[in-house]
């Protein structure tokens, strides 16, 4: 394909996209050039296909439901972004909570095992009072870590929900 043909074919695509006919000189060129004629015919077939797709129709019920929801939001929404943040917040929180709750029994079992076996191991070596204090401190630290992880989840979920809303709304 020669350079003039490349230009002709590009312009034919532009014409297709604008729902217009190719320019007269390009049409004339296509009559004398097999490549460009083939290109033109393929674009005509493509246009027929694109135009054959029926215009999608929105049901009256959905239109009315949308109108009501949007009107409700307009009247209620004194603080913009409050509702979408709440929706996104729930979803994000669930996404964070699900794996954490699944892992929680493992974490508890692991820490209980550590307490039990270290207690057994150190029973003869360390005074009982000290062992109790160390055990309590370990249990407290482990519980605190778990509480910190779960307690931070609402904040992380809120931040993620807000980030998603900002991604979507220009």
């Amino acid at each position: 394909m020669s350079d003039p043909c490349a230009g002709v074919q590009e312009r034919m695509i532009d014409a297709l996209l604008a729902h217009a006919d190719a320019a007269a000189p390009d049409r004339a060129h296509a009559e004398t050039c097999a490549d460009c004629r083939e290109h033109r015919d393929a674009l005509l077939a493509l246009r027929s296909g694109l135009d054959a797709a029926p215009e999608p129709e929105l049901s009256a019920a959905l239109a009315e439901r949308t109108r009501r929801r949007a009107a409700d939001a307009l009247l209620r929404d004194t603080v913009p972004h409050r509702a979408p943040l709440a929706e996104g917040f729930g979803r994000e929180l669930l996404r964070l909570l699900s794996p954490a709750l699944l892992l929680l029994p493992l974490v508890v079992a692991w820490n209980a095992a550590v307490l039990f076996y270290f207690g057994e191991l150190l029973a003869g070596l360390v005074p009982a009072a000290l062992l109790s204090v160390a055990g309590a401190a370990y249990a407290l630290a482990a519980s605190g870590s778990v509480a910190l992880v779960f307690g931070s989840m609402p904040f992380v979920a809120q931040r993620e929900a807000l980030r998603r809303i900002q991604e979507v709304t220009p």
Partner: protein
Amino acid sequence: MARVQRGDEPALNELLERWRPRLFGFLVRRVGDVAAEDLFQETWLRVVRSRDRYDPKRRFSTWLFQIANNLCRDRGRRRKVEEGYKETVREQVQHDAGRLEAPPLDLRMDIHRRLAALPERLREVLILRYYHQLPEADIAEVVGIPRGTVKSRLHSAVRTVRGQMADEEDEA
């Protein structure tokens, strides 16, 4: 839109009525029937909730399609809507087959299938340009890419669909 920003409900109804066919058409072609219904509602809720962010100097159509397109992308990321779209296209074509005035089934099936087979980055620009006649500058704003990239993607989309057609003719 300026009236909607002031909380005027009749203005919102007018706006919704005016843009309803174009927005729904865009969404159906972009993500398929089932997802389009959800996203249609979601788009209008976003319009209402984000009305304070709308800059009246911008075209409303660009802002509206930008919200809708971002929702399509967001949903696609989270739910892999592409697979669902291909399925709903088949359902829609079967549903349409019952309409007497509908064009021949194979022609519509072809174009639905070909649009669905396009990568998202090509499909979104082709739909905005061909079906909604948005200028390239507006498409660039909606999609968030340079204008030159819009042009190259449009040509690439047309060539890809053309290539699919040629391959099928060869196979036949």
